[in-house]
């Protein structure tokens, strides 16, 4: 294959990936619209806005609501996987200011934190700048997954603390700490496995696909970074996201 043919092949591959990505984005948007309508109607029925329902009907509606929530979570993860599977994106690295990125992400979660009256704050354990090199979209997905979990598994009126620290000159470490649900010893080896969810997580939230941490772990591996955690009933759970400094 000569250089021109190689360029054409590369362009065709990029076009195909873009088309696939666009198709998934549009499909996800349309799916979400229908799932939103179903969610709102089910909630109205459960709230008895349209009249009384008996216990059996309520039980069925709750199951349907939970099923719908699982679909919504799956669509969100499908969007994240869409990005993770794009080989072009992995090589498209940019300089990322982690502090700035985290501030933007907190803006996204203001609704979720207000819902549970959770305080979400950032603190710096060393002086910046906290700059890494990577695919901004992927790094964002990693932080979103970990922070979303921290909020989800915090008790109401709790706090999620995000600490940023420069590890010597070689890495930036972000710790996301929450009180509330901890991870049992027997579950710890499986936490980054695809579709794995702890029983406590299932009991607390009957939806979620078990893909979030798997995706985050995979994306960090592609960036020569790491994802680890500590968890105990006394101290809560802390996830550590480490990325090499640029």
């Amino acid at each position, binding site marked *: 294959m000569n250089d021109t043919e190689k360029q054409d092949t590369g362009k065709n591959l990029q076009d195909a990936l873009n088309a696939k990505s666009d198709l998934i984005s549009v499909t996800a948007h349309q799916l979400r619209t229908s799932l939103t309508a179903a*969610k709102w109607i089910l909630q109205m029925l459960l709230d008895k806005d349209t009249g009384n329902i008996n216990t059996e009907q309520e039980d069925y509606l709750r199951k349907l609501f939970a099923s719908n929530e699982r679909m*919504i979570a799956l669509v969100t993860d499908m969007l994240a996987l869409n990005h993770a599977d794009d080989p072009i994106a992995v090589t498209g690295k940019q300089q990322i200011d982690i502090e700035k990125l985290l501030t933007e992400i907190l*803006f996204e979660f203001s609704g979720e934190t207000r819902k549970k009256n959770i305080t979400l704050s950032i603190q710096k354990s060393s002086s910046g700048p906290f700059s890494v090199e990577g695919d901004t979209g992927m790094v964002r997905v990693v932080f979103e997954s970990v922070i979303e979990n921290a909020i989800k598994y915090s008790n109401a009126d709790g706090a999620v603390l995000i600490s940023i620290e420069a590890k010597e000159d070689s890495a930036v470490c972000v710790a996301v700490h929450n009180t509330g649900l901890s991870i049992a010893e027997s579950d710890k080896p499986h936490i980054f496995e695809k579709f794995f969810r702890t029983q406590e997580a299932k009991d607390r939230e009957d939806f979620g696909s078990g893909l979030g941490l798997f995706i985050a772990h995979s994306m960090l591996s592609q960036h020569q970074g790491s994802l680890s955690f500590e968890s105990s009933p006394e101290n809560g759970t802390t996830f550590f996201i480490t990325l090499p400094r640029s």
Partner: protein
Amino acid sequence: MKKILIVEDDIFLQGLEAGKLEKTGYEIISARNGTEALQKIHEPGVDLVLLDLILPDFDGFDILKKMRETKELEKIPVLVFSNLSEEKDVKRAKELGAVDFMVKSNFTLDELAMHIQAILK
């Protein structure tokens, strides 16, 4: 009574949003596309705009941009309420002055009403 402009092209979702917010105690006016939204935003006394991003004629970002360029509209809070959630969309909405960005499918209507109440407090 506080007045909310709902900009939403899906008539079914618009009806559900309006119904819940009216019950909560707000006066609601609605627009189903960008052109209509830009006319209604000039009605006196609009306290908040609930803005979808994908609209049939031009998108929600254009509306945000035009509002920020118009002196009498620039201070009206805009809550983006969309099923888009990509980084570039959230970032752009924030840069254009949205007070918040909520992904519709992640919230119930009660939660939306509480969120609006907190913004208008």
